[in-house]
């Protein structure tokens, strides 16, 4: 957990650590509890995202898909995080 006052570089440090972790082929979960200006989506929300090697694009500094209406884009792939979907997909692994 990274704490500190405003503008101390917490988000940057968490990105650096996530980048290191994914390059070492780990899959950490990045939890962003910053309501003011988060990394994952619009301001005013908190969230978590599992990271893997493909999250970091050379072009864009931190490429993470925003939460969108995934059902409308691809009906079958409901990779939202509702808990029963979670259990169904992960029981198979």
């Amino acid at each position, binding site marked *: 957990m990274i704490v500190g006052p405003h503008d*101390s570089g917490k988000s940057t440090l968490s990105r650096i650590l996530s980048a290191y972790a994914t390059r070492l082929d780990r899959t950490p*979960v990045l*939890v962003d509890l910053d309501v003011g200006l988060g990394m994952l989506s619009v301001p005013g929300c908190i969230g978590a995202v*599992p990271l893997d090697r493909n999250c970091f694009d050379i072009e864009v500094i931190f490429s993470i898909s925003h939460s969108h209406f995934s059902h409308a884009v691809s009906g079958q792939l409901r990779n939202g995080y509702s808990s029963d979907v*979670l259990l169904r997909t992960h029981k198979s692994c």
Partner: protein
Amino acid sequence: MATPLMYYFGHTNPAENIPLYKNYITNLAQKVDLRQEHDLNSLSSGIIVSTSGWIDGPGYDTLLDVIRLYSIDVVIVIGHDRLYSLLSTHATSSAPASSDPSNPPLTVIKLPKSGGTVYRSDSDRRRLRRTKITEYFYGKRSPSDLMTSLSSLSSATSTATSLQSQIESLPNRYSPSRIDLSLKNYNLLKPGGIQLPQSMMPLSQSMEKTSTAINELKLVPCPLSIDLEHAVIAVLHGTNTLHGVNATAPTLVTLSTLAESAGDGDPLQLLLSTNVAGFICVVKIDLEHDILTVLSPCPGHLPSTNILVGAIKWVE
């Protein structure tokens, strides 16, 4: 690439509704634990938690809650000596005797603030927030898009303002659509119940006794008013989670129906732990016909009929 699990708090400062913030942190911790239970790779890789800059008073108590809820074993404190000493004394004083996996011994590390950090003023922050919401709806312009488009544009002018306008004239990555929502088909909700004045309370009760925590956690229907203009609204996931294409509009699950299906449980608790499917922004309000025109990431029906209003506004 997974879609993030998000909860919409609705304010940019956690102090505005502490019980609601704690509620969402707790829910998020439960979901993260649930995921890690089923995925060994994830469990061995751990979590990285980034917090807000709120460290005084209730902010410090919230940090202690986060440490407990997420079973954190390493805390990195950047550039704040007092916070480091408070957390170190907390770590040594609350060292558990037995090794309990959900309550590991805490290591507190102090880091100096890097010289490269820049102080952001309030107007900088507001601008950054506005940009983030714009990026949500319209997408980021990637450097390669910029390079290919700029090379084809005229290179005669070199002033900063013309370059800015050239960059802004580039096409956006995403095209959001405007859809009309008829409010009789949607549950427009917002956190925070009604604060009754003392004169309206029953004689035996006083305002101090009824804890404001109950009011602030309560999701109540939000009336349609001109205040909703430019509000950023979160669309919650549907309570009936089904696979498959959602071709028809979801039927309105009124709060009373939710109460019946939830049985003894509170229907609002169900909604307080439902994560966000996406965000929409109010563009126009038609008070006569109860219709909201909103900007939505994709056309078609919204994933559910429960939408949560916050205090965040965005003008295009």
